[in-house]
C-alpha cells in the first residue's frame, strides 16, 4: 500500500508520491475508461512515479456536470467529460456540437488538434479548469422502429427520443420530427411499446443498449459529433512542477491517440455485431438535404461566432 498524500496540500516537491483522481462516468471496461487507465499509466511513467492517477469509473463520484464542478473546487483532479455538459459552463463550446458541422472524423480532429481546439482547451481557464486533450465521442445517428430513413421526408412526424438539451430538441424539430426527452433507461421499453418511434446515438451505444432489437433501422447521417475532453483542475495543475505539468500534457495527448484508435475499433465491432443481429443500416449518399434543413440553427446557435464556424468548415 502506497502512502497517500493529498493533492490539495502537496506542492509536489518533497519527494512523496502525489495521488491524483480522475473521474469518468463510463463503466469499467469501456473504451474511454481504458484510455483513462492508459493516461494514468503514462503519467506515472513520464513522471517517474512522482504522480499517480487513480481512475474512478462508473460515475461513482457523480455525473459529468457534478464532476466538472468538483474539479472547479479542487475536490478531484481530472475529469473525462463530453463537451455537452461542459457547454453549460462555457457557451462557446456549443459551437463544436452544431449539427452536420464536420465532414467526417478526420475533419473534426484536424479542427480540434489545431489552433481552434487548442484555444478552446485554454479557454476553460476562466472556469478554473484546463483542457488537456480531445477524445472521440463518436457520431450520433438516428434509428427507428418503422422504416428505412433515406431522406428528411422519411423522418417526418416520428417521435424521436433526445437528451434534454435545446440543441438536440431543435435539431429534431428542424428535421420535421417530434423530439421527446426521456430518461435513457426508459428508451428500450418505450421503443418496444411504440411510445416513441426512434432515438439517436452512436454505434457502440446502439449496440450495448440492445436498442437494435426493437429499432432495427439505423441511418448513418452523423448529425452530431460531441467530442470529449480530459480536464484538469487548475488548482491541482498550478501546484505541480513545470516538469510534471509537461509530462501530464504529453501523457494526455498520447492517451487520446490510443483512445481514438480503440474507439474506431469499437465502432467497427459494434456495427458488425448489430448487422449480424439483423439491423438494417442505411448509408446516405449525401446528407446535404439534412444539412439544409438545419441551416436556421446555425443562425440561432452560431450568432456571433460566424467567423469561427467559417474557419471550422474551411479546415482541411
Amino acid at each position: 500500500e502506497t502512502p497517500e498524500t493529498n493533492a490539495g496540500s502537496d506542492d509536489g516537491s518533497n519527494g512523496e508520491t502525489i495521488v491524483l483522481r480522475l473521474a469518468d462516468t463510463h463503466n469499467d471496461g469501456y473504451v474511454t475508461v481504458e484510455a483513462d487507465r492508459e493516461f494514468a499509466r503514462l503519467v506515472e511513467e513520464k513522471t517517474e512515479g512522482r504522480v499517480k492517477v487513480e481512475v474512478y469509473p462508473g460515475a461513482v463520484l457523480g455525473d459529468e456536470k457534478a464532476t466538472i464542478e468538483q474539479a472547479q473546487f479542487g475536490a478531484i483532479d481530472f475529469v473525462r467529460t463530453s463537451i455537452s455538459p461542459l457547454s453549460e459552463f462555457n457557451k462557446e463550446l456549443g459551437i463544436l456540437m452544431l449539427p452536420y458541422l464536420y465532414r467526417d472524423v478526420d475533419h473534426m480532429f484536424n479542427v480540434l488538434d489545431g489552433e481552434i481546439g487548442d484555444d478552446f482547451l485554454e479557454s476553460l481557464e476562466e472556469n478554473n479548469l484546463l483542457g488537456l486533450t480531445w477524445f472521440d465521442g463518436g457520431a450520433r445517428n438516428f434509428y427507428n422502429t418503422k422504416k428505412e430513413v433515406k431522406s428528411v421526408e422519411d423522418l417526418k412526424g416520428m417521435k424521436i427520443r433526445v437528451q434534454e438539451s435545446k440543441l438536440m430538441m431543435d435539431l429534431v424539430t428542424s428535421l420535421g420530427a417530434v423530439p421527446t426527452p426521456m430518461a435513457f433507461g426508459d428508451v428500450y421499453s418505450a421503443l418496444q411499446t411504440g411510445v416513441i418511434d426512434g432515438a439517436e446515438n452512436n454505434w457502440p451505444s446502439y449496440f450495448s443498449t440492445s436498442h437494435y432489437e426493437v429499432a432495427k433501422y439505423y441511418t448513418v447521417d452523423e448529425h452530431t459529433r460531441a467530442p470529449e475532453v480530459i480536464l484538469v483542475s487548475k488548482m491541482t495543475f498550478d501546484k505541480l512542477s513545470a516538469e510534471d505539468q509537461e509530462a501530464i500534457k504529453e501523457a494526455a495527448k498520447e492517451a487520446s491517440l490510443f483512445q481514438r484508435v480503440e474507439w474506431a475499433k469499437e465502432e467497427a465491432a459494434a456495427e458488425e455485431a448489430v448487422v449480424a443481429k439483423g439491423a438494417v443500416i442505411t448509408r446516405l449518399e449525401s446528407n446535404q438535404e439534412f444539412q439544409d434543413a438545419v441551416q436556421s440553427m446555425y443562425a440561432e446557435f452560431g450568432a456571433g461566432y460566424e467567423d469561427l464556424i467559417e474557419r471550422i468548415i474551411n479546415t482541411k
Partner: protein
Amino acid sequence: MKAIKKILNLTSNLLEYIGMIFLVAMTLIVSYQVFSRQILNTSPRWAEEVSLILMIWFGFIGIALGVRKGIHLSIEYFVSLLPPSLQKIIIKLDQVLVCGFGLFCAVYGAKLVKATGGSTLPATQWPASTSYLMVPVCGVMIICYSLAQIFGIEETTEENNELTSKEGVEL
C-alpha cells in the same frame, strides 16, 4: 423569549406551507407533462427541470423542518439504556452537533452557491446555483431551530398538539 418563539413558529409554519405548495406544484407539473406528451404531442422542456428544483428545495425545507419538529430518524435504543441524567447531557450534545452541521451547511452552502453561479441548467438556462440555493438557507434554519432546542424553546403550536393527539386516537 416569547417573541423568539413566535418568530420561530411563524417561520416553521411558513416553511410547512411552502413545502405543501411545492408538493402540489410538483404533482401538477408532472401530470401536465404526461398530458402534454400524450394529448398535445409535445414535451415541455422546462417541466422536468423545474420539478427537480422544487424537489431539491422541498427536500432541504424538510431537513430544516424536521429539526424543528424533532421528526428525524435516530437510534434511541443505546441512549435509552443510560441513566436519565446522562441522557439529558447527551441530548444537549446532539443538539449542539446538529447545530454544527447547520453552520457547516450555511457557510459552505453559501460558497457553493457563489462557485456555481457561472454555469447554467440545460433546459431553463437558469444559473446552476439555483439548485444549491436552499443549502445555505436550510443551514441557517437548522442553526436557528437547534439553538432554540439548546435553550429549551421547543415548538408547541396548538395546531401541532391537536395533530399529534388526533393521530394517536385515529390510528
